[in-house]
């Protein structure tokens, strides 16, 4: 794949910053983006499509008398288009209202460079290679059990690069790669269809295991066929990473955002130094974990990525800041300004939300459990109350754990509770860490969770 050179992207960014200032912007920041992705898709159980998406663009943020304007375009190899975007950004700022709390764009600070985030082999990958990956996955899923039916999924390779320049002298470039494969399947027997079960593997270097993904998807789907009803009770629950990712994203990850704290939307406001979770919980936001899915050298406004302690042995230590919220408190950004490509202004997001693993092997946690549930997939986490942390979700499905063994699955079980109470009832953390989106975590065992059976 031909991609834009580092020098070319940086030149574009720097020239546009100059141009903004010439045209009357007080401050300017230019974000140049290139994303290229090749995907092979599985539909209705077979490989049936392939696509290539090339998306480039630039987003310009300017300040005029403390009012902020932003404009973007996806036409970057044309100077008149860039001129036009600059004018639009400045006009937008002029139309907007000054923000008395605006204290300028980020200043230049030293960077620690991201490691293991780029692999040239991924860039060179052809659609044929992705077809091979997808077929391996399909074959091993169907090999598990005749009742397993793969539905959808695929394999994809992508390249992403960004350059950021601003009027405070920041000028920096980073590039990275990602390869992933995923499969969703159901198992069928007679009139019974299981909920959709899925697995995936995503890495920054060319090191994925499609056969494992297929096998694991098949295993989980097949094991969901036999079902049993359970009664309403309070019980122990093992949350796997799938469930944690959903629940954390809509509750805990918001509560540690400085923006939510400053705006009275976080239950963690005024709680720095206080106990907010069980003692076995330590969480870092670490944008520099080697090979992490969200590892980059800098964030969406050019601030260096770093490792930020959020909760240490249950004690709340810090929040996640972008440049704006940090300056409001007279401190430095934690490098958590995130962008969805060139189309948006930065917003605070976790990078790699790292729950430090425990020492208990996953098997041991199950074998020591007398009565409880293990949860993979959840539905409805997005309907949680983001301010209070209250959730009411359904497990699709859950599996019963009885006398040290995983037993029947159970459908339609609802879990209700409050994330911030739940954090205090974590009794064990396993040692089976994996990366899933922003989350890097192991299974966690929580005591006394309310489940509503049927």
């Amino acid at each position, binding site marked *: 794949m031909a991609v834009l050179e580092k020098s070319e992207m940086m030149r574009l960014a720097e020239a546009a910053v100059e141009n903004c200032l010439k045209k009357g912007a007080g401050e300017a920041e230019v974000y140049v983006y290139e994303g290229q992705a090749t995907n*092979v*898709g599985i539909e209705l*159980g*077979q*490989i*049936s*499509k*392939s*696509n*290539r*998406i090339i*998306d480039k*663009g630039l987003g310009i*943020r300017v300040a005029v008398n403390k009012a*902020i*304007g*932003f*404009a*973007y375009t996806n*036409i970057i*190899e044309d100077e008149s288009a860039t001129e036009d*975007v600059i004018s*639009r*950004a400045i*006009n*937008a700022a002029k*139309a*907007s*209202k000054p*923000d008395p709390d605006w204290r300028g764009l980020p200043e230049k600070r030293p960077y620690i460079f991201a490691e293991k985030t780029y692999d040239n082999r991924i860039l060179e990958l052809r*659609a*044929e290679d992705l*077809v091979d990956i997808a077929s391996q996955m399909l074959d091993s899923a169907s090999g598990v059990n005749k009742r397993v039916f793969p*539905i959808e999924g695929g394999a994809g390779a992508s390249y992403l690069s960004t350059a950021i320049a601003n009027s405070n002298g920041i000028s920096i470039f980073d590039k990275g790669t990602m390869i992933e494969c995923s499969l969703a399947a159901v198992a069928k027997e007679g009139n019974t*269809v299981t*909920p*959709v079960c899925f697995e995936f593997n995503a890495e920054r270097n060319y090191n994925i295991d499609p056969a494992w993904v297929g096998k694991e998807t098949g295993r989980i789907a097949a094991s969901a066929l036999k079902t049993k009803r359970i009664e*309403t009770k309070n019980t122990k629950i093992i949350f796997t990473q799938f469930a944690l990712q959903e629940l954390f994203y809509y509750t805990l990850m918001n509560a540690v955002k400085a923006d939510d704290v400053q*705006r*009275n*939307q976080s239950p963690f406001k005024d709680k720095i130094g206080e106990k907010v979770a069980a003692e076995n919980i330590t969480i870092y936001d670490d944008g520099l974990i080697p090979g992490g899915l969200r590892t980059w050298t800098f964030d969406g406004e050019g601030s260096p990525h770093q490792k930020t302690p959020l909760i240490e042995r249950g004690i709340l230590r810090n929040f996640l800041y972008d440049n704006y919220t940090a300056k409001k408190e007279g401190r430095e950004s934690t490098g958590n300004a995130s962008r969805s490509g060139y*189309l*948006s202004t930065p917003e605070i997001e976790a990078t790699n939300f790292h729950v430090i693993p425990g020492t208990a092997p996953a098997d041991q946690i199950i074998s020591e459990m007398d009565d409880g549930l293990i949860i993979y997939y959840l*539905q*409805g986490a*997005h*309907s*949680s*109350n983001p*301010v*209070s942390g*209250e959730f*009411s*979700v*359904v497990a699709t499905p859950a599996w019963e754990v009885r006398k040290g063994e995983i037993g029947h699955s159970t459908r*339609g079980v*609802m879990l*209700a509770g409050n994330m911030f109470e739940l954090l205090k009832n974590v009794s064990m953390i396993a040692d089976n860490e994996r990366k899933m989106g922003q989350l890097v975590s192991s299974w966690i065992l929580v005591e006394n969770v309310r489940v*509503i059976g*049927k």
Partner: protein
Amino acid sequence: MRDLLNHIIEAAVTKFGAEYAETRAQTLYKTMLTLKEGRVEAAKQGIENGVAIRVLVNGSWGFASVGSLNPEVLMNAASDACKMAKTASSRQKTPIKLAEIKAVEDSVCLRPEKNPHEIQVQDKIKTALAINKTTLSYDKRVRSCTIDYLDLTGNSHLLTSEGTAIDQDKLYVWSRITASAKSKGTSTFSREEIGSTQGYELFDKQTPEKIGTAVAKRAVEQLEAKSPRGGASAVVLGPEVVGVFVHEAFGHLAEADLALSGGVLASTLGKKVASEVVTFYDDGTINGAFGSFKYDDEGVQTQRTLLIKDGVVTGLMHNRETAKKLNTAPTGNARAEDFRVEPIIRMRNTYMSPRDHSFEELIESVKLGYYFKSFRGGQANLDGTFQVGIQEAYEIVDGEIGEPVRNASICGNTLETLFKVDAVGKDFELSSGRCGKGQTAFIGDGGPHIKLKEVTVGGSA
């Protein structure tokens, strides 16, 4: 541009071996605002230009998207798409075929009363500030207010190797308002979403005062609310909750791609899956509704599709591929978010038809239960498991609406639950929303008030 795209399509068919080729060239303009407690985070404006090229080669799809109108870039993309389709077809058992449609040449021009593209950013900020002011001044316990605003205008130009040539304007105005309130250690959260394909006149109906009051009032009311009892209960659902139930719990299962993937509606055509008071439509023809348009992204004219009539499944939502597979006609449900992605089966405005009960009759018929008025999100699974989170709820005691209840949710199996609909109201309301299925689609959903004999309510008490 049309000549250039025709040339690309011709090359895909004659040089690169495509059985079918289409190009979708789009120019999109967006204005976005985010306000937090009246602070304008940034006024944002964007332009996007790009072409999607989709081809069918040896029964497999190839797709390429580029942000360019450069002839050479487009020709490479077409060649790429065909090559990739060929590669994908190497392991394919059942080649994809498309249902036949009549080629259409048409031009769809929208003439909004108030074109958002022509309204000054200052005026849009003024509207958002008015919503903010109403929300925050409603009660001093309202602590925060976030307003997101988006308008999207532009044009989509579809050409196919079968002779379809459709030039269609696009217009969407959307806003989401959230507020939180806090008192004595209790925190609440409230959300409203509005949208239209008509124009900026949306705010003449959904005035800043009306929408700001609604969002603030709900946040404050919940402060005094209690948790629901978990377990089975009789419930009355408001039009907004009925809408999300129809969309999430049933609608997704009636998308033919998901039905064919092993969903529970796969072999239910002509079968009774609901009580006889249940009739569902997916309708792209409602003027101004958020999920309406004239042609889908495969060039099929939109329609009003009957999904369930008096409890019996009458149809699914199709694109050309699934229609061919199930030997029926496409329903105009193939939609792509933009030129970066392929069209997939999406809903339009999905709703339940009203019947004959008054709201009072529905409430009176419940001895002990809940009235669920407004939702906070919903989700469904192919096996029919659904969950809908509720952001505004009340107890019903002895046939009367009682105290407010917070953070409830309902869950169950769609097909079991549809049989439990035992009374349907005569009112009707349609709401606007966005639906995620890998891509975002603007949709509408709604219906009348209804009563469910029994559903599982999730609650912590």
